């Protein structure tokens, strides 16, 4: 097992190198860079000044040279200074923005699992019944809702109409709550975005659980369990569920990067200062150091996520052993 993990980590180093080069290359071949945008619409700027600026931002080199420079610094732990924020990139990335996005997604993720797993099991047990159709219909409806539309409806009903929840933002302005009151205030602001995440995300999980459960319920060993005289409850939640867990666990590992990537649309609608919003801004301004660090962070998480799901695979499925 340990050997397997070490080997996987060594391979991931190569993968990360490839990923970083691809991303850097793509960012650099974009038609206009940061300096072009900065100086656009300013008629007084001379081409010498522009050159000087490009040199200052490190944009005057070739792609390969630039990449080698970036890589050299990155290997020393220096990911450069963000063009727009004028602060070290790591400081911008691992700021409250990331944790705001993460908190939102993580809470939504847990709620999704709590809803999807039991409902998926119920739907599978009562396949083709009214309950099953109702559950699957709701799941599909949630899955197909556009987030901006659904968010608008929620805001219309719960913020403007009923006035129960705040419209947007993360804290109530001019209140300056501290301590528990502050957390409660933020919680109120997070309810609607989390509802959007959950309703939109729960469907795919639910369908996944249902399909897997259906497959397992028809397996011979489930019939064997029944033939032993086990109660239906034990058959489902011990024998069938343990086997349904196998594919679900791998799916969970795969969704780890998603927890950190932020949600651009939902964050924008609710004016939440999260990482998704920061990333889309960085794309607009072509903030190469920030984008590089952000995407490399996600790449590392993706690799970690798959590694974790592979390891979990071996934990839940005795047939899987790595040497």
């Amino acid at each position, binding site marked *: 097992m340990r050997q397997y993990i070490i080997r996987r980590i060594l391979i991931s180093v190569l993968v990360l190198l490839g990923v970083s080069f691809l991303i850097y290359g793509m960012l650099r071949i974009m038609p206009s860079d940061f300096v072009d945008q900065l100086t656009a619409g300013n008629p007084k700027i001379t081409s010498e000044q522009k050159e000087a600026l490009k040199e200052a931002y490190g944009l005057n080199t070739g792609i390969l040279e630039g990449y080698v420079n970036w890589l050299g610094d990155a290997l020393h732990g220096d990911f450069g200074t963000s063009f727009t924020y004028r602060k070290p990139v790591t400081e911008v990335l691992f700021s409250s923005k990331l944790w705001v996005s993460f908190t939102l997604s993580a809470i939504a993720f847990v709620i999704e699992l709590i809803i999807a797993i039991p409902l998926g099991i119920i739907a599978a047990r009562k396949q083709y019944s009214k309950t099953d159709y109702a559950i699957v219909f709701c799941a599909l409806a949630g899955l197909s809702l556009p987030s901006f539309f659904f968010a608008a409806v929620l805001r219309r009903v719960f913020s403007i109409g009923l006035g129960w929840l705040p419209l947007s933002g993360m804290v109530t302005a001019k209140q300056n709550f501290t301590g528990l009151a502050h957390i409660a205030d933020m919680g109120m602001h997070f309810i609607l975005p989390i509802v959007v995440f959950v309703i939109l995300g729960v469907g795919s999980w639910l369908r996944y659980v249902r399909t897997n459960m259906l497959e397992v319920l028809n*397996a*011979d*060993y489930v*019939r*064997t*369990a*029944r*033939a*032993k*005289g*086990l*109660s*239906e409850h034990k058959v489902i939640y011990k*024998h069938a569920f*343990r*086997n349904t867990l*196998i594919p679900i666990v791998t799916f969970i590992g795969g969704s780890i990067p998603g927890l950190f990537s932020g949600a651009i649309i939902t964050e924008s609608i609710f004016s939440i200062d999260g990482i998704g919003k920061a990333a889309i801004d960085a794309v607009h301004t072509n903030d190469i150091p920030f984008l590089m660090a952000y995407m490399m962070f996600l790449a590392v998480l993706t690799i970690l996520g798959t590694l974790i799901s592979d390891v979990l695979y071996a934990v*839940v*499925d*005795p*047939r899987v052993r790595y040497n």
Partner: protein
Amino acid sequence: MKEIKALNKKMYKKFNQEKKRNNVPESEYVTEMRNPQNIVEFDNLKTYFYTDQGTVKAVDGVTFEIPMGKTIGIVGESGCGKSVTSLSLMRLLQGPQGQISGGEIRYNRDEQPVDIAKVPVKLMQKIRGNEISMIFQEPMTSLNPVFTIGDQLSEILKLHNPDMDKKDMEERVIELLRLVGIVRDGISDSYPHELSGGMKQRVVIAMALACNPRLIIADEPTTALDVTIQAQILDLLRNLKDKINASIMLITHDLGVVAEMADYVVVMYAGRVVEQGTAQDIFHNPAHPYTVGLMKSRPVLNEEIGRLYSIPGNVPNPINMPSHCYFKNRCEKGVEKICGGEYPPMIDLSETHKVACYRCNEAVQEGGEADGN
């Protein structure tokens, strides 16, 4: 189409209502055995599957009995309702599509005989695994891949003997494994994928024997195994049967296995019993043309023959069965005038030997002749 849907809906509803009932009064399922020497009596059992294409009468009026301590072989080609009969006895049909639609399965319980077809689920769970156990035909997939052999064996012990302490249980697991001929150390800590097919089937058998059942249903226990293992497993079953004094209901399409194991034989065709009798009756004096065909189609040692005989034609479509003898269109002896009428009744040829064929007397003679050679 509409009628099928309406009927299915009605039957599903009935099934779900039955399932939901609590506190079924005892008088509804307690019954009387016809012969107290029998462990199980199937009486006009009808098991139907309500599908979108129509009602499949997988088992349509099956009547036979399993005497205590005897082995009864059920033979017939694929799809003739052998497995469905056994699943009905275990009440393991895939509901609500598959359900017992009529007839009785009288089971001679220690306390009092009950009708399995009407027994509430709670009581059925006590019977399953404990009094009637089943060996399935797929050893490769019948064990749960994520639990160890020991876990799966002790689970059934714990379920039916809640007072058993842990040490006794471990000993019993090892004893069971030894009983089925697995003596390797640490076997109870291994997972199913670490065992060979034959070993898995032994574990499945050990599981079926765990609570000293009174009846073991073996649904093609050797089909998935190679010949040497088949012989071992059959020996094992025969020895164990005597050891724990159980009855065996052996389902197979392998006539050799039946000849070797069974005291009584039931021949099924298209969801009905066409012939039943002692193994002697069936093998030496087959009376139904279908049985005669089956006997002719098995390979014989030390005899030079060309191609093996095969019964012409196919089993009729299980939806919309004809009203005449189901075998008529494939039968060599079929005579339109006689066989085109109603489905033939069971005719007693001797005290043990029964057959459902209008022309059985002629068939007996020929079968006898063939045997005399």
